[in-house]
């Protein structure tokens, strides 16, 4: 067999409020995250990254792709618009059903996928968001980490989806670069310790991130 794949989905908020420095920082952060993961021999063998953005619509920017084949497009933000996180979860559910290889008696499937969500607001489609929560939970993600960025991001709503919510106070480049560094470290640890029987811990978040308890 080849190594099991470790699917990692990234859901990024591209609503109007992300315009300007925030989205620039996200683009820079994504690049350095992919570069850092490519320098990790464990991640290179197993991590497959998928990227979904959400504003007035949810879009799959690229499906699960091996690290060395990822070509990051520049992520753009519309002039204004709502934050359809619920739609993004719906798209994620559809895509992951198609993309994730499940085990069969003949063939070993993927590791349980990881999901990282970053938003600077709260879902405009709250009903869809809440409807999707049980659907996402059913899909047995290995870990779901939500990041609430900036003063307007609402931790409590994200807590409905996952216990792992981190809060970034600001949406400037330094904070985002720390955040993406942290995501890549978490993914690295996940890829080198997948299968260890005791639960592995996330690396400590950078100083700018607050973990919401």
């Amino acid at each position, binding site marked *: *067999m*080849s*190594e*099991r794949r470790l699917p990692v989905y990234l859901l990024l908020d591209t609503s109007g409020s992300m315009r300007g420095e925030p989205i620039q920082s996200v683009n820079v952060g994504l690049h350095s995250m992919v*570069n850092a993961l*490519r*320098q990790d*021999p*464990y991640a*290179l*063998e197993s991590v497959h990254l998928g990227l979904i953005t959400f504003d007035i619509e949810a879009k799959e920017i690229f499906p699960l792709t091996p690290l*060395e084949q990822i070509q990051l497009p520049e992520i753009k933000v519309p002039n204004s618009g709502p934050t359809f996180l619920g739609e993004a979860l719906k798209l994620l559910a559809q895509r992951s059903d198609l993309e994730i290889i*499940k*085990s*069969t*008696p*003949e*063939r*070993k*499937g*993927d*590791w*349980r996928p990881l999901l990282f969500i970053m938003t600077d607001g709260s879902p405009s489609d709250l009903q869809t968001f809440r409807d999707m929560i049980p659907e996402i939970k059913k899909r047995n993600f290995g870990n779901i980490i939500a990041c609430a960025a900036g003063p307007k991001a609402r931790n409590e709503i994200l807590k409905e989806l996952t216990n792992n919510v981190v809060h970034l106070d600001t949406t400037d480049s330094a904070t985002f670069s720390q955040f993406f560094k942290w995501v890549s*470290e978490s993914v690295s*640890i996940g890829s*080198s*310790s*997948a*299968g*260890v*029987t*005791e639960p*592995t811990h996330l*690396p*400590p978040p950078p100083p700018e991130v607050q973990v919401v308890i």
Partner: protein
Amino acid sequence: MAKGKIIKTQTTDGKPIEYVDQIIGSGGMKDVYFSPDRSYVVAFFRDKQDFQAKERLEMIAGRFRENIYNNIGGEYWKNLYCWPTHVVEHDNKIGIVAPTYQKQFFFEFGSKNNDFLGIKEKEKEGKWFASASNQNRFLDPRERGNWQNYLRIGILLSRAVRRLHAAGLAHSDLSYKNVLVNPVTGAACIIDIDGLVVPGKYPPDVVGTPDFIAPEVIMTSHLKKDDPNRKLPSINTDRHALAVLIYMYLLYRHPLRGDKVHDMEPQKDEILSMGEKSLFVEHPTDTSNRIRIANVKPAELPWKDTSKISYTITGPYLTPLFQRAFIDGLLDPSKRPTADEWEVALVKTIDLLQPCQNTSCDQKWYVFDNSIKPKCPFCGTTYKGKLPVLNLYSSRKEGQFRPENHRLMVYTNQSLWEWHTNRNVVPNERLSDKQKKREGYFVLHNNTWYLVNDRMNELMDVTDSNHKKIIPVGSKVELTDGKRILFSRQDGGRLAVVQLVESK
């Protein structure tokens, strides 16, 4: 890079140290800082360490370090371990001081296509090399080394582990994460020594690295730490990890990761296939965990095709050890080969190597397959020409020589050393400088193979016992089939019987 502040503090044994207040790297448990001159690093544990842990670290940096370094061959170990020298306590955090890694353990060229991954100057973590796909798809060919150097890496690792075990210490997390290797020169260095299991002390908090955790540890990991049935890292579990490391460095695949599915849930399947239900992918009779070629990437071939590159290509000394490690001893720790056995078998295997005649062969060397038509298992090239093999015999009683199951392959510029000519000499950390000098060498001249005598005063052709011929220093003896050569009459002196393979 922004300049960090220099922090001055002192070690628990009172030595002043300094470090630049800027993290240069973070591992699973520690954050690492450089000293201002970069000659050493200070690594602080992120989590609070209890009194037990501090005491254990002080023993590792103190007594155990001194016992190894202040003994015969002490200097030798400096290259093989990155051993913590001091314990430090600063800002309520416990840390260790350790030497900086040698320059050769950082990539010089990195990855292919002008280093498209950007790994130049990054550490040569073992995982880059122990994987067919990383080797074939990513590494710059100038970083990949050759098969002989992977055997050397195996020797150094076995030797380093053997020394730890001799001191009663277990590494506890032996894996390619904690081993730096340089296949270009055949060097290796064990790092992360702070996790050592010290006899009589509470074991460290080590989970281990998935590919290397021994089955009994996985099978009992659901039990509480103080449960008497819970198996914790030990010398026995190190032996499992060492066998996996050697297998992976020589064959670029994992010995237990085949295609047998035990559970639909990946986590549960992992626990079963590395624990209770673990099964060697090359088990001779139970073929249910074979690697299915249909399920591998092209870049992983030929390595993942066990029918093409079987573990038996590692030769007659390593093959039985792999069988003991992954068949008999997989679930029975007492049957696993010791580090010492690995070291001896690997050293003998080096003598059984011959260069591949295909100059573009990636591996360059292979183990002689004891056939009259030797063939490189990696590129398929058959050997052409005369190939002398020296079978070594030794004497326990005057005049009576017995075979030692030890052979030396002859090729151009192959050297004869004292550990070939005398059975009392073993190539390891105890060799004296005198013993590191060549005794003789082999050369092909006008289609005839010769042994040239550099410094053997008693070298003698004893083929005809009635006409023994002294071969003086500086002269040579022709290698023909059936020739008997006595290297020395000293205690332990060996005799060689030549076999000549002629492959057309």
